[in-house]
């Protein structure tokens, strides 16, 4: 089974890339027409481990999932590589090698520390007066060294590094853009500004002025039925990949719908057949 090459695809067109977390979600993404998938660190924690997105998943769990997924779909797999699963660039180099061996075609490496994860933002949202749980960051130098390590690990392969910065809440959009531009000098082939740095198309325009090249728009979302961007309006600014989360909720909804039906019918002698 020949896998398609992500870099070739991105050179031709913009991709809407859903986050997935196992073989079933990857296969369903492929079956419903998506051309690539992103293995989500948060969703791995939730689905595989029953744990929060607080840097609790391990590199071995990512490798396990990546190997199985790339064995059963032929669309490219990208991996949310968090901080590279190590403090040292040498450890990140080894971990990127392992993820490439497992079949990944792109790996994000972010400038967070072990104190990270979406769970902190959920907590802040749901706990009035709570600490903001801001993302804590490694130094720019350490992050760029990790990017370099990842890029060297990718040499001679079809895999590339996506430099992801979470620095916006602490350091602002200017610094986030600067970090991305410098990450390209280290060998990153795509960049990704997360943690609220990119909200609307105007942010895309500002980022594109100084960060030239392929970029990822992090998780298209909507509020009150209105999407924050359209795919078409960010594409001219180099955003040839837009990620989204839909399969987690879809799976849970589908399972609960069938389970609820079966429980209601349990004493009537009917149920929906597998």
């Amino acid at each position, binding site marked *: 089974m020949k896998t398609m090459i992500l870099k070739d695809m991105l050179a031709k067109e913009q991709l*809407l890339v859903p986050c997935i977390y*196992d*073989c*079933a979600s*990857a296969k*369903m*993404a492929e*079956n*419903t*027409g*998506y051309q690539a998938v992103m293995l989500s660190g*948060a969703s791995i924690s*939730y*689905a*595989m*481990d*029953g*744990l929060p*997105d*607080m840097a609790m998943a391990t590199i071995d769990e990512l490798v*396990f999932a990546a190997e*199985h997924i790339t*064995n059963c779909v032929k669309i490219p797999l990208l991996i949310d590589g968090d901080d590279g699963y190590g403090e040292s660039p040498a450890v990140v180099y080894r971990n990127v090698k392992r993820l490439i061996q497992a079949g990944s075609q792109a790996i994000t490496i972010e400038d967070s520390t072990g104190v990270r994860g979406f*769970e902190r933002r*959920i*907590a802040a949202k*749901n*706990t009035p007066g709570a600490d903001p749980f801001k993302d804590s960051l490694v130094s720019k130098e350490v992050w760029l060294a990790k990017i370099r390590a990842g890029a060297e690990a990718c040499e001679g392969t079809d895999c590339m590094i996506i430099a992801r910065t979470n620095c916006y809440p602490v350091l602002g959009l200017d610094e986030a853009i600067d970090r991305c531009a410098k990450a390209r000098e280290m060998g990153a082939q795509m960049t990704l500004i997360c943690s609220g740095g990119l909200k609307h198309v105007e942010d895309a325009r500002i980022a594109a002025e100084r960060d030239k090249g392929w970029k990822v728009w992090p998780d*298209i*979302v*909507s*509020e009150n*039925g209105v*999407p924050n961007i*359209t*795919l078409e309006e960010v594409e001219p600014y180099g955003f040839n990949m837009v990620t*989204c989360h*839909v*399969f987690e*909720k*879809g*799976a*849970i*909804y*589908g*399972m*609960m*719908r*069938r*389970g*609820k039906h079966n*429980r209601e019918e*349990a*004493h*009537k*002698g*009917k*149920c*929906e057949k*597998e």
Partner: protein
Amino acid sequence: MEDNKNAWWSRQIVAADIYDCFSLKAASKTGYEAVYLSADAVAECVCGLPDTEQMSAEELLWAAKRVFAFSEVPVIADIRIGLGNSTESAARLAGRMAKAGAKAVWINDVLSDKEERMIKSEEWKRRVWKVHEAIAMYPCILICTTGTRTQGMEHAMERCSQAASCGADIVGIEGMDLAEEARRLSEAVKAPKVWTEWNADHVTVQELEDLGFSLVMDCHSVKGALEGMQLFGERTMADGNTVYHDEHDYDGMLPTRSYYDLFEFYKEWIPLERGFMETAGKVVKG
């Protein structure tokens, strides 16, 4: 350790199939009081394999250990024939499942689903006994089912009796779908019984309870997950945005529109983390 091993199925239980912590959460939120980690579902959804015959014991344990650690309801570990050809390897896997937290281990006598091959009767009895021994020190019961229905109900019922005499706590025949078959099994085998695939149009769970079926397995999660993902995936692809996903209210089944609100991990883990930091801060300050 064995005192309460039978408490959770002291009355009839309908158990949903699961394969990860999403399916576990969906089942418990829907009201299921027990679940079974389906080897077929783990093979298909977690490992991307067509059947359990290609899955290793380590792959099943990988999923099982994580589910056991997260679950608040009893989890039955379905290990098929043991994911290996030898009785010794089946017993070892059963023991590891029980040690990891399975409240029941479920084995069968099917060597190959495709070829409808079963292990011989003498080997079946030995396997049941060995697995029984392997889990005896843990709060874990043994469920044994047979795939020999195609060889006739008499033969299958004999397999159930053999399993019960060798240490099985619950026995059953796979693939039954008629109330008449349930009655025949109930008359022939007095041990507690399991109805393995509750897809019958003619048997209620109450009837099954009256006939001594302590466990009813409700297999719906894989199909449900695939249906839901297909719906959300197709709509998002067609719309080019996530409005359908974001606005979907789970048909009112949940008070939230966010899947992560279902878990509320932050309520446990953030205060835990903060507590460690506060304790350390007090020591530093002296």
